[in-house]
């Protein structure tokens, strides 16, 4: 038997991309869709993502943003060190906190920090950053294979799926194990395209998992207009319209930074 699982992360209030991603995953034949956290940030009308997650029965892992908004903390715990990054992070954090209902904040508070499941004989661990820390950045160019082997060994799983960095990548490991970063559907992947990405994982007994990243197009112009209506920074809107990141760049490693234009 084959099981098809879809993993999306970094929704960042982009309810339009969320709707389009769910539709795409359904067309592909996903048996279950999972969300790996950071429902808010960046985009407009944060409350609009919750009904979609509820309607399609999508289990969620708690991201650092969800913990912050849920508990009304002072900041998003993104771990930025640059003043410019922190400036923009503060704008979107304040907006998201003010515009998330009490009921949805309670929902965010109650999310688990990880989900473990066994599917087709494989042990899966779904997390936000890394199996050991919610806001650990696992970038492709700064995460070594021996380190991933260690993380999977410690967690005693065959497949780890995370998000947090916003860039999709995966790496096969020893013994048929894999690490997958599903990317983000909230904003483009700093590749000059306006689409966003999620991960499709197909599992079957006695065979290695099939992993692919799927691009999703959505009405990004409408999102940009709504962001403008809500007074969100032009820098964020530019990212939605061009596919290039304009903020939160200091945490990017050299290779990932060089792939973008800013």
């Amino acid at each position, binding site marked *: 038997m084959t099981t098809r699982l879809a993993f999306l992360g970094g929704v960042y209030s982009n309810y339009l991309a969320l709707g389009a991603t769910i539709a795409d995953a359904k067309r592909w034949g996903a048996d279950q869709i999972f969300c790996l956290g950071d429902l808010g940030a960046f985009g407009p009308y944060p409350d609009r993502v919750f009904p979609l997650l509820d309607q399609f029965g999508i289990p969620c892992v708690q991201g650092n943003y969800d913990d912050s908004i849920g508990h009304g903390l002072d900041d998003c715990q993104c771990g930025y060190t640059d003043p410019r990054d922190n400036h923009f992070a503060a704008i979107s954090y304040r907006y998201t906190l003010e515009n998330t209902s009490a009921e949805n904040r309670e929902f965010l508070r109650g999310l688990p920090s990880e989900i473990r499941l066994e599917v087709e004989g494989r042990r899966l661990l779904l997390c936000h950053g890394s199996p050991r820390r919610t806001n650990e950045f696992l970038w492709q160019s700064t995460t070594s294979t021996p380190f991933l082997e260690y993380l999977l060994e410690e967690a005693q799983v065959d497949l780890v799926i995370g998000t947090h960095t916003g860039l999709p990548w995966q790496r096969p490991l020893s013994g048929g194990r894999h690490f997958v970063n599903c990317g983000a559907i909230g904003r483009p992947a700093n590749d000059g395209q306006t689409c966003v990405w999620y991960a499709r994982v197909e599992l079957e007994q006695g065979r290695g998992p099939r992993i692919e990243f799927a691009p999703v197009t959505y009405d990004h112009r409408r999102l940009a207009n709504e962001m403008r209506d809500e007074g969100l920074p032009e820098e964020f809107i530019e990212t939605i319209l061009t596919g290039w990141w304009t903020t939160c760049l200091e945490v990017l490693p*050299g290779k990932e930074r060089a792939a973008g234009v800013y």
Partner: protein
Amino acid sequence: MNPLAADTPQVSISHLDQLWFQVSGTLCNLTCHHCFISCSPHNDSFGHLTLEQVRARLREAVALGVNEYYFTGGEPFLNRDLVPMLELALRQGPATVLTNATVLKPEWLTRLKAAHDQSEYSLEFRVSIDGFSAETNDPIRGEGTFVRAMRGVTQLVEFGFLPIITAARTWPEQEDAMVLARFREVLRAAGYARPRIKLLPTIKLGAEVKRTEGYRDSQRVTAEMMEGFDTRQLICDHARLVTDRGVQVCPILLEAEDAVLSETTMAESLKPYALRHGACYTCYQYGSICANPSGGSLGFGDRA
């Protein structure tokens, strides 16, 4: 050695995420007035690591699940085997070299660019410049060093690298924003269109003690301070340093008497360390001072 106070906390390593190499020991072509290990062309109290030593440690590192490698000194490029060392490291993980960028040769950069392009991992250059002008930098790093380091930055940019300019804060902290802005301006004017900058606190050890002051006895980490503190902020929580004397606790306490944790294997060095030094206090205050910004995490949600 400082006597161990009753309330001196100990830090157990959570995992060896970072492995540092003191590749050029304490030898440097410059003699910076704030250097916390007093490196100079004549300070050979720590010597160069050989390519074979680095190769053997890299082999150990795979088994221990190390994530990333840092190469420091002294000036790492004084070690004639640095390029092959970085090539080796890039086969198994991301590598960072901490340099003053005044001795870079095009043939080395050509090889490193090729190694970087072939690797899935990032090679980062951290370039020390301690002021945005010759007037602010040279009194600390030496006559003519600003111009020479900026030339090095331009060279790296021409090779397609995005160096991280690392500046030790020798100005009042409230001037950070101004200093960052001036740095960006100067770097852009020199052709570095998207400068990356990391500010560091000074460490009041070595030459810096003469330039300003050392640590007071009261500047120590206590057990009480550790309550509720995220130990991930401390480098000894997740790193070790390889020197020609063995495996040491961290790149800052190079000369501390209790810093050598193993003269044999790296696994042996993974034992608790007492935060007895003044520099531990700086590490505690500022957190993650040695790592690159891409590893920057404030440790939320630690489930280990």
